[in-house]
């Protein structure tokens, strides 16, 4: 479902959503929901909190859809801005972030993956990510986990695409060090 829509298609879906189109609503949900959830899990390290936050985002989409104007910006940026603001609000209320539910979920991945991933190494990666500063963590979750392009992240964060490439290069380097150690 992911990466199936062009910018124009998503804007069209948004316009249909404004009119209460359930089919368009379903498509918007299927497209954005996994991306936003992954972004939240990567940032909060907690699935339950991420579920609540993702749900919050979609309720905000419905409540604010009338304010969306494609002349001002595209729908993707608009949705991600809501997701990002939701997360900022969450961090304001609770600053701590730990990978509390990692071990249990990792067990499931090792069982289902065709290839085996060394459990310890995976934990190490997550530990490295945890050590990232706030900007790096955000870019890691958006680029690495939610697959957003540099252009999309630049629109959301206000950083230039060049600066983002430097960030991603730095993140990649740190992760690769763990993987190849």
């Amino acid at each position, binding site marked *: 479902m992911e990466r199936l829509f062009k910018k124009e298609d998503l804007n069209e879906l948004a316009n249909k959503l404004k009119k209460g189109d*359930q089919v368009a*609503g379903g498509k918007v*949900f299927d497209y954005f929901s996994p991306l936003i959830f*992954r972004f939240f899990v990567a940032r909060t390290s907690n699935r339950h909190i991420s*579920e609540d936050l*993702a749900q919050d985002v979609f309720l905000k989409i419905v*409540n604010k859809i009338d304010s969306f104007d494609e002349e001002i910006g595209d729908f993707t940026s608009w949705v991600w801005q809501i997701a990002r603001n939701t997360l900022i609000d969450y961090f304001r209320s609770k600053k701590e972030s730990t990978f509390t539910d990692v071990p249990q979920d990792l067990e499931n*991945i090792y069982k*289902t993956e065709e290839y085996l991933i060394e459990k310890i190494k*995976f934990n190490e990666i997550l530990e490295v990510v945890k050590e990232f500063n706030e900007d790096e963590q955000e870019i890691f979750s958006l680029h690495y986990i939610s697959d957003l392009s540099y252009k999309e992240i630049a629109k959301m964060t206000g950083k230039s695409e060049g600066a983002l490439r430097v960030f991603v290069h730095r993140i990649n380097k740190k992760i690769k060090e763990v993987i190849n150690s």
Partner: protein
Amino acid sequence: MIKKYLKNIRYKKALKRYFAPSQEFMDKNKVIFLETLKAKIPASNLQIEGLHKNKRMQYAYIYAIAVFFLAAGSVAYADKADVSPTHPLYELKRVSEKIQLSALPKVKEAELHEKFAKRRVDEIKEVKNKIKEADSEEKINKLQSRGKLNELQNDFIQETEAIGDDIPAQEVKKGKTQELCKIGIEAVDDDQDLNKQPNWMKFRRFCDKILEKEEDGIIKENKERGSFLDKNSKIREKVGIKPI
């Protein structure tokens, strides 16, 4: 180098899978999202909006549906009322006949062809009566009765011939054709113009043949019956019983 690259991709994929939402959450949350959407923006808004946006198309669509239902009703009426060839809905009656024929299995089609052939005969009679009743040539031309009669005559021939294609049993086919020949000839017999039509003349020859055979058969049967009666009366005479 490639090995390291693939390893990197593998971990990236594993990370994505690790961070993916559960299907249960997706399903549950989708329902909540769509229900909220429904409550906030009723779907009826969409239809009204759609009507305004493509107003012409919407009206054309409604018009087409209305025409369809009107036409369907008219077709049914025209068939049920068995309207005459001069009636405005006559063509719809013929449409109905075609629809009925296309919806039936081959064997059943013969029954309909027979029914429609009889209808054509009745229509020929009806039109002929109208011609007799018409007090001016102008009226006849206006009704296009002459043209209609020729058409009806040809349609009758076609329906009768079609029975032969659909009934496999020779005897049943012959019996039905003989019956139609009789009523067809009876309806057209007093009309010189219709009798001179090439198609009709050919059909007439065919009818004469099968009716002749029928006549021969009856005569033969009567003769056989007669000889049986003769024999029977002779026996009766012999034993002293009065002849029948």
